[in-house]
């Protein structure tokens, strides 16, 4: 069989030395600039505290916070681990619950209409207001905190999944109908990939929210004792006026937040980078 031999020429790659150099410079700057800004900010803070001799029980210098992190590290690590567990579990459960319920909503309009109000009520009621009740009804503190953090992180995943599953191209849907795709094939090869961009956006939001949920829930619970998280360390230190320790715990919470942010951003780029507009690096 004769083949058709008309191939449109591929667009030429930009072989412009100046453009390449500019691109390289920009790539370096995306790292250098934020690091530089951070160093300047911390340096300025250190200098202000030293120059004006601000007492450490008001504002500790960064060096003092670092020192506290070093000395109190072992005692804070247990709490940090507790918060990590709480955050990761609640995010995991939010993903499982949000995706399952989202898929159910996408499959059945009736289910969505019946259950959506509950999801909205859960979302709009501040977790701080529900937490005391949950603490009464649930024996295990960890489980109660988990439920609180889950409520906060769950809704974005749910709505992201529902919107995503609905966003599949209608012509592609027709194509799957034409080729008599089974419901499973439709989900696996069309709906799930179509849902990924909005799911990933939701995951980035939910990642941050699960940490906020974990910290806020612990504040509300006022949990004390050995087996508690960073939020409890912060409250505890404030009662004892240990401001550097408060800051140290705070740094750990922020670090955790940054790690979650980087992880979800990395995952998003990993999953969408080769095809979705939101994660494609423009060359020009």
């Amino acid at each position, binding site marked *: 069989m004769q083949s058709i*031999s008309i191939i*449109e020429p591929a*667009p030429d790659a930009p072989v412009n030395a100046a453009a390449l150099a500019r691109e390289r410079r920009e790539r370096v700057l995306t790292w250098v600039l934020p690091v530089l800004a951070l160093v300047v900010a911390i340096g300025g803070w250190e200098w202000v505290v030293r120059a004006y001799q601000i007492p450490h029980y008001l504002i500790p210098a960064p060096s003092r916070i670092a020192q506290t992190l070093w000395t109190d590290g072992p005692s804070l690590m247990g709490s940090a681990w507790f918060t990590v567990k709480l955050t990761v579990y609640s995010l995991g459960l939010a993903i499982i619950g949000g995706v399952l319920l989202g898929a159910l909503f996408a499959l059945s309009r009736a289910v969505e209409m019946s259950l959506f109000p509950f999801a909205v009520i859960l979302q709009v009621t501040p977790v701080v207001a529900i937490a005391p009740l949950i603490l009464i009804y649930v024996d295990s503190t960890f489980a109660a905190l988990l439920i609180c953090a889950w409520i906060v992180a769950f809704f974005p995943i749910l709505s992201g999944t529902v919107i995503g599953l609905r966003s599949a191209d209608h*012509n592609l849907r027709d194509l799957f109908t*034409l*080729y008599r795709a089974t419901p499973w094939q439709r989900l696996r090869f*069309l709906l799930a990939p179509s849902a990924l961009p909005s799911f990933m956006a939701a995951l980035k939001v939910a990642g941050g929210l699960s940490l906020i949920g974990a910290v806020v829930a612990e504040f509300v619970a006022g949990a004390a004792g050995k087996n508690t998280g960073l939020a409890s360390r912060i409250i505890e230190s404030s009662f004892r006026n240990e401001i550097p320790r408060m800051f140290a715990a705070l740094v750990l919470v922020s670090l955790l937040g940054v790690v979650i942010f980087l992880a979800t951003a990395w995952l998003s780029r990993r999953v969408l980078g*080769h095809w979705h507009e939101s994660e494609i690096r423009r060359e020009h």
Partner: protein
Amino acid sequence: MKGDPIIRMDRVSKRFGNDTLAVSDMTLTINEGDFISFLGPSGCGKSTALKMIAGLLPVTSGTISIAPAAGKTEQDLGFVFQEPTLMPWATVYDNVFLPLRLAGVTKADARPRVEQALREVGLTKFAQAYPRELSGGMKMRVSIARAMVTRPRILLMDEPFAALDEMTRSKLNNDVVRLAAEQGLTVIFVTHSVFESVYLSTRVVVMAARPGRVADDLVVDVPWPRTEDWRISTEFSAQARRISDSLKGTLDAEHIDH
């Protein structure tokens, strides 16, 4: 067999939920090997008719019957949409593989067939590219390769090249005619371009709007497939005028109605 009826539409009507009569009483017999154009203004129901033939839209009344293909389990009907309609997350290869994958063909069995389909549209080198890396014309080729990968007898095309530039469009027109001739395809090609319909088809079904219906059924009795030279012949102009007049007649009639 070539020339035998392959699609029969018998008094087919389509009424949408908002009470528009998109297609009214359409009766048409299409023979194997025909290259038919549905030509008409927007709103004449040509795309609706095509989707009903593909089974993508249910008919409101009437029947559509397609002569069964002996011993074929995979989809016997290829469909090319107005947009390329590719999965942006999948490579060109995986996009073309899709119909076979959905039919349960294994990767190993599918490989030579997908490669063959890509060769036929000249995209072998781009198998691992993603749709966003391709030009509009190349995306359309992928879409055609995907429609052809199940070796269908019938190819339905819904204004496939309307959004492309003139050069690319004419290249793709030639490619489709060539594929159709080589494989003895029956093609229904929806278009609103008189020239495209004259150049491509052996038969032009002129449709009128409000309600959508068949207004005229004209045979373009010129040897087929045709060459580029024919585009500038007086014969081409004459055929184009004949079909243009028919189309104008339906438009004028509509104008008097309102």
